């Protein structure tokens, strides 16, 4: 019987591939291995400006436990077939569920969706990769636990393990997700199971409360990498504060970003504002309000500044819209609120409180995200240009006003050159900012596909020349982004890969790491 796979792994014959698939079926059950082209369709859907074929998978295997993964690793090593682990597979704009390279078997961990433990006293959770934020939210609600987590914007369908492993960020005081993870379980390429930190010790009950353990702390090497398959992850939950006061401050001019950052950085570092402040541009807010682009501009190229100004005026949107919250008691929030009012007044910003936000979808979904309530409001962005094309360009910046204005102008100029709009925001980590830009384009238009690819390429290399690196990148550009970080780091990564996965079977090419 010849293999039905459309994309065999590199250097593997159809006969050998069929044998590997047969052995995987024996492990997980026939119905949990897919090879037929039609059934693999959901894995193939990408938003990146490259042909689907570039990320075509060989098959999908769907284990339901650690022991099955250990056995799959043995088969993968025996036949030298690469496997590409995914959790919820909703890293949209960064690669979705498709493998980093053509001809890999996606190992879909979505069936492993157990919330293993929630400790309401220590405010911790231990979850599997298939758990979604919505599921965790429902669990906490059903058990009447006043605990919050931080989630990214596609939270209803994405999950904590995948997001933390890709070092994603969110919008509550626990917004730097990897920082608030605590303890991992990892299946290594040779089938051994490693528990990091205190989890390595038998009978330990401190796995989810103390990150470091003894000796080198290893968790970091399993994020943005391919050194193992993360099968459990501990995370810290935040006690719901007695008083939560989200707010937005709007500013009228693009150049205001300088004074905004200068005014807010001290409050963020001192934790008067404890969460990741977001500074969103008009064109991020408009599609989520919602505003239709075609109502303001139907010509070629990027939307002109005067049309953007008109959107601001018509829909009460700032050139920059600052989102943050106070998390405390009524007394502490009353005191800190005076500081926020003074900062807004001193910088020419207009405060919008939760009470005054009614009617704006953009404000509503932001305020929900700041308390970790899952939604998909930000998908409104995809209606801006239409056509299902999106890649995130996400350089890191210092939290300094001069740097942010420089980055915004650089990005806007390059995007405009290719006919794309600046749809961006800055997320204040603590002393850094993630400058996140959604490069939106029509994926059904070949010319726009080509331009989007070239535009991202120019953005990447121009920013790298100025010393600005990506915090995260889509799979089509993994190799190019990795290259901007220099040869020594890559050499070390390669040596680690050789030591931990000598047959190069876990997601070769992920974040540019391969043998």
């Amino acid at each position, binding site marked *: 019987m010849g293999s039905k796979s459309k994309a065999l792994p590199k250097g593997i014959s159809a006969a050998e591939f069929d044998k590997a698939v047969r052995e995987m079926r024996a492990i997980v059950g026939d119905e949990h291995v897919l090879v037929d082209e039609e*059934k693999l*369709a*959901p*894995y*193939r*859907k990408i*938003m990146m400006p490259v042909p689907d074929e570039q990320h075509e998978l060989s098959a*999908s295997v*769907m284990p339901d436990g650690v022991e099955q993964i250990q056995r799959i690793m043995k088969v993968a090593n025996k036949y030298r077939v690469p496997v590409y682990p995914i959790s919820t*597979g*909703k890293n*949209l704009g960064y690669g*979705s*569920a498709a493998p980093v390279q053509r001809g890999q078997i996606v190992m*879909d961990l*979505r*069936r492993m*969706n*157990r*919330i*293993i*433990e*929630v400790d*309401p*006293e220590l405010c911790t959770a231990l979850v599997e990769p*298939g758990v*979604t934020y*919505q*599921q965790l939210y*429902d*669990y906490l609600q059903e058990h*009447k*636990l*006043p605990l919050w987590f931080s989630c990214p914007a596609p939270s*209803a*369908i994405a999950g904590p393990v995948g997001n933390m492993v890709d070092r994603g960020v969110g919008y509550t005081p626990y917004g730097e997700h990897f920082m608030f993870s605590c303890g991992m379980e990892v299946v290594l390429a040779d089938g051994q199971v490693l528990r990091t930190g205190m989890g390595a010790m038998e009978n330990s009950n401190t796995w989810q409360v103390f990150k470091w353990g003894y000796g080198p702390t290893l968790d970091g090497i399993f994020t943005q990498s391919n050194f193992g398959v993360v099968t459990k992850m501990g995370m810290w939950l935040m*006690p*719901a*504060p*007695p008083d939560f006061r989200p707010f937005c401050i709007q500013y009228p001019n693009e150049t205001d970003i300088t004074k905004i950052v200068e005014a807010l950085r001290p409050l963020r570092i001192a934790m008067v504002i404890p969460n990741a402040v977001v500074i969103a541009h008009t064109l991020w807010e408009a599609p989520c309000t*919602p505003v239709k682009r075609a109502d303001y501009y139907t010509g070629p190229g990027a939307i002109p500044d005067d049309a953007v100004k008109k959107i601001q005026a018509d829909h009460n949107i700032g050139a920059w819209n600052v989102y943050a919250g106070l998390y*405390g*008691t*009524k*007394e*502490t929030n009353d005191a800190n609120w005076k500081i926020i009012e003074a900062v807004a007044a001193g910088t020419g910003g207009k405060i919008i409180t939760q009470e005054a936000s009614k009617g704006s*979808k953009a404000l509503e979904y932001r305020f929900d995200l700041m308390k970790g309530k*899952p*939604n*998909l*409001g930000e*998908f*409104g962005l*995809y*209606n801006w240009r*239409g*056509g*299902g094309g999106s890649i995130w360009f996400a350089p890191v910046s210092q939290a300094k006003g001069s740097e942010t204005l420089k980055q915004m102008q650089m990005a806007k100029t390059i995007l405009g050159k290719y006919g794309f709009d600046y749809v961006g925001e800055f997320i204040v980590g603590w002393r850094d900012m993630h400058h996140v830009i959604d490069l939106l384009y029509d*994926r*059904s238009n070949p010319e726009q596909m080509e331009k989007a690819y070239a535009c991202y390429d120019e953005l990447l290399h121009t920013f790298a020349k100025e010393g600005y690196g990506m915090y995260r990148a889509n799979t089509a550009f993994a190799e190019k982004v990795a290259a901007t970080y220099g040869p020594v780091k890559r050499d070390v990564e390669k040596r680690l890969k050789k030591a931990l996965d000598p047959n190069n079977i876990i997601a070769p090419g992920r974040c540019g790491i391969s043998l």
Partner: protein
Amino acid sequence: MRTRAWAGCLGVLTLATAAGSAVAGQWRDGAELYQKVCGHCHEANVGPVLKGRGLPPEYIQRVVRMGNRAMPAFRPTEIDDATLADVARRISTGAVLARE
């Protein structure tokens, strides 16, 4: 003052959850799926309204599996065939969906 207010809030936590495992993902039915997944876009001005259009169930099922432009595709590990068929039938025939 501050400590007391927080402690009051945390008091209920002494009612510990049963550790064990909580498994979702096996949806109760199409209505629950619609509320927890579809409705986040199709009831929120993000995706188009689906109800009352008499869309054929086969078409709905296909779009869920293939995705459509910016709409993500959903794998059988996320939405099993039976629940997908149920939600498609409910949307198509105007049967009761959650949040109505």
